């Protein structure tokens, strides 16, 4: 589904990503962890063209991201959820979820609204149709943002620290939605600090450090039997070795 081959990126002299290669199969859930500044978000944003890259190639579902026409196609197939939600504050929840369907997919009003209602029900917010984002809690806003991305019927979903801006008691409701998406077989790349999520939901964990993928493997291997020295340090620093999954056992 995703093929990344030898991709790099630098800001001036600063090299933020170095020769990254990665293959992700359809249906895989990949958690990307690592210290801040390690390039995880930059890498994720590259996968839908929000960041440019130099050298190498990225293909998503067969579409080459370096070609402008393909890029547009890729954006339709790749959904993204941001740390700051980025809902459109001037539009109601319903319009937030329908607007891209109408403008980009050229769906009829009825079809777009039908799909939006179904997705809002799925994230448990069907009654918020006429509300504005500012009237929702952070967790609710993020769930709407997930519904908005799903409305494009993406094949891949990218989550860029989707729970980092949330109050701790609201993290669980968003993780629940992400978990149910994973269970439905969505291909997901999740930049996260939630080790519980990485451990229990992801099929695979990438550890990024200083612009490289420093470790890559199943969660049990990466998180419980880390070999890489920096990974060991990182795991110790976040003190998260045996922390229970937020949503399963709310504290």
């Amino acid at each position, binding site marked *: 589904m995703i093929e990344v081959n030898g991709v790099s990126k630098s800001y001036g002299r600063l090299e933020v990503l170095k020769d990254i290669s990665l293959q992700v199969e359809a249906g895989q859930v990949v958690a990307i962890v690592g210290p801040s500044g390690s390039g995880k978000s930059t890498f994720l944003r590259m996968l839908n063209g929000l960041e440019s890259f130099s050298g190498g190639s990225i293909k998503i579902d067969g579409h080459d991201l370096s070609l402008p026409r393909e890029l547009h196609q890729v954006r339709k197939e790749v959904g*993204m959820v*941001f740390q700051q939600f980025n809902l459109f*504050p001037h539009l109601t929840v319903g319009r937030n979820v329908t607007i891209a369907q109408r403008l980009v997919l050229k769906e009829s009003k009825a079809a777009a609204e039908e799909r939006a209602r179904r997705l809002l029900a799925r994230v448990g917010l069907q009654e918020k149709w006429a509300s504005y984002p500012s009237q929702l809690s952070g967790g609710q806003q993020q769930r709407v943002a997930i519904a908005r991305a799903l409305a494009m019927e993406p094949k891949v979903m990218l989550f860029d620290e989707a729970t980092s801006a949330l109050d701790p008691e609201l993290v669980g409701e968003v993780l629940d939605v992400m978990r149910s998406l994973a269970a439905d077989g969505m291909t997901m790349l999740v930049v996260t600090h939630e080790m519980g999520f990485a451990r229990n939901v992801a099929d695979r964990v990438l550890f990024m450090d200083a612009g490289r993928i420093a470790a890559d493997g199943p969660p049990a291997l990466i998180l419980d039997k880390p070999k890489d020295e920096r990974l060991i340090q990182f795991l110790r620093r976040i003190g998260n070795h045996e922390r229970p999954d937020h949503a399963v056992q709310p504290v």
Partner: protein
Amino acid sequence: MNFSLVWEARWLILDSFVVTLYLSASAVVGGTVVGMIVALLRQFGLRPLNLLLRAYVELFRGTPLLMQLFFIYFGLPLVNVSVDRFWAAFIALTCFTSAYVAEVFRSGIEAIPRGQSEAATALGMGFFHRFFWIIAPQALRVSLPPLIGVYVSVIKDTSLATVVGYNELTRRAMELMLRFGHPLEFFITVALLYFAICYPISKLSERLERKLTPSAR
């Protein structure tokens, strides 16, 4: 003070009051349309185009409106474009206003967090969809109070059209004064009429500002 003369000239004054309203409305509409086009074009981020647009904005913000009126009224005929008094006043006021509107609108656009544009991009929306459906409506909301401030200035600035002989309110007051004397009575009346237009608009702007600023919405 003798306001009976003013009362006798009331229809003449009212007539030019309407003329002032008409010129103001035309300049506000023209300035807004041109200003927003300038702001939109600047979003393309093309260097030569941006330089040109910035030159336009700086030219009309950096020179007195009075000079602009003279240049258009006396200058355009020299290149065989004949303008009557209304059109000279309208063109000058439109250019002048559009320079301010463009700046207000540009800073409104810059006040919108980048995440808005990114979220729209990630949903597959192209430049025009992003601009007209996501960015512009929010920028307009932020820009509304300062925009109204610009409009109030424009209404007052229509009085400068006097110099090209356009028969708006100030011109009419001068003519009446020259014919009948009693300058204070005529000018007080005219000043009150300007105030009657501008004050409610300023109040409206204040109320909008209070309504729009406390929350993001």
